[in-house]
């Protein structure tokens, strides 16, 4: 069902864990759906210099989270916002149709994390 790339990221996820003092946090999904994705970002000079994820979910959800952190690390906020769920799925070599909603969660969580950061910056001013 899953590509080797998906399984790689699932067995050995990148950048998982809780971030102390994140600059932005985005969380999507809910436990009754079986998927919860939380992304933490650290931003400096408009670039995402660190990103971590925590996920409750299936192999696709975990792999998508892990891949997303790889794709986002070091990008500017604008570049990060351009990343779409199809891009994440493509980087993983594709996802089964029924699992595409997992990549949607990652795109959403990233957007929310960046929005959260931007809101915090605005509030400080």
């Amino acid at each position, binding site marked *: 069902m899953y590509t080797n790339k998906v399984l790689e990221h699932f067995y050995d996820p990148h950048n998982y864990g809780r971030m102390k003092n994140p600059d932005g946090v985005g969380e999507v999904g809910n436990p009754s759906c079986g998927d919860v994705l939380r992304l933490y970002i650290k931003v400096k000079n408009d670039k995402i210099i660190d990103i971590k*994820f925590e996920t409750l979910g*299936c*192999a696709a959800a975990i792999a998508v989270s892990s891949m997303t952190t790889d794709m986002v690390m070091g990008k500017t906020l604008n570049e990060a916002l351009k990343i779409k769920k199809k891009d994440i799925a493509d980087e993983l070599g594709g996802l089964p149709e*029924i699992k595409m909603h997992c990549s949607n969660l990652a795109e959403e969580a990233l957007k929310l994390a960046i929005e959260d950061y931007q809101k915090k910056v605005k509030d400080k001013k």
Partner: protein
Amino acid sequence: MKVYFDNAATTKVDSRVFEAMKPYFSDIYGNASSLHGFGLSAKQALEEAREVIARKINARHNEIIFTSGATEADNLAIRGVAYKNNHLGNHIITTKIEHPAVLESCRFLETQGFKITYLSVDREGFVNLEELKRSLGEKTILVSIIFANNEIGIIQPIKEIGKIIKNWNEKHNSKIIFHSDAVQAFTKIDINVNDLNLDLLSISSHKIYGPKGIGALYVKEGTKIEKIAHGGHHEYNLRPGTENVTSAVGFAKALELFNPKNYEAVKSLRAYLIKEVLKNIPDSYLNGPLAENVLPNIANFIFKGAEGEAIMLLLDKEGIAVSTGSACASHSLEPSYVLLALGVPKEEAHGSIRVSLGLENKKEEVDYTVKVFKKVIKRLRDINPLR
């Protein structure tokens, strides 16, 4: 270590079953309906197999219909009764925890004008007998209740249900038919169709160390059902198609080999597995009954804070095969409807794993699996944002 803990999904063919089947591929290969010698010797083997199966459940020879499996047997039972008896009524009673072969057959009949009552179950999984009694009516033609559930192993009070239906029939001079899908129960518990007042019973070969692709429907003499496939007049004109003699022989051999006594050791191993899992992994619990009224080999666990498909794949990586009731692993986005019917909260249902032991499993395999469970669950919980 490779550990196969998914015996409720399927079992391997026992080597003695395989040996018994061999002659019927290329030595005795005639069409059992042919009237020459080649056919007659195949026919003899078929009828011997039929006799063995009949005796196992205390049925008559001519009450056993071979099918391609229990799914077909369930379809034949439910749609067969519906089409033949719709002049008597259009109401069918079943439960919320049936196998999809029963549920989907019922759902299909709903589109054809039949009314279906899906009985609730309690927190352990027992069918609500009061609801059954209340549901029986003058338009009821069939009651279908799964003998032992494939996900949680619970064994229903089939004898009591048989009595309820018999009493109703006697009181109202009606002929409500009683069917049970006994796929998981067969050979693990003794089934005597007369004692239980059953009219129809579905059984399968590949859950009991026989080959895939064959099952049977017990049809009590006098029970009228419509055939659902058309063609030749095989199987007492109820199920057309050249008989699968090879598999019928295998099926009969398998059920000759195993009976409840063989499962005593499995029962102890299951108890040990449950004890060790619940002891070693916090925030976990068993679905269904612990020891009574439950199959000797099925244990369905909930692990809070970890998702079922992820657990299953991480176990698979360590060589262990189990199954999950998580939505992510199904083809819909809903978790197991059986667990939901029990009242398991949705978020917990996603963290379900079914372990189904087989006759060859050993204590070392359970010990290894518990160790892996512990490691895997902790790992998944550590990356859960809601921990």
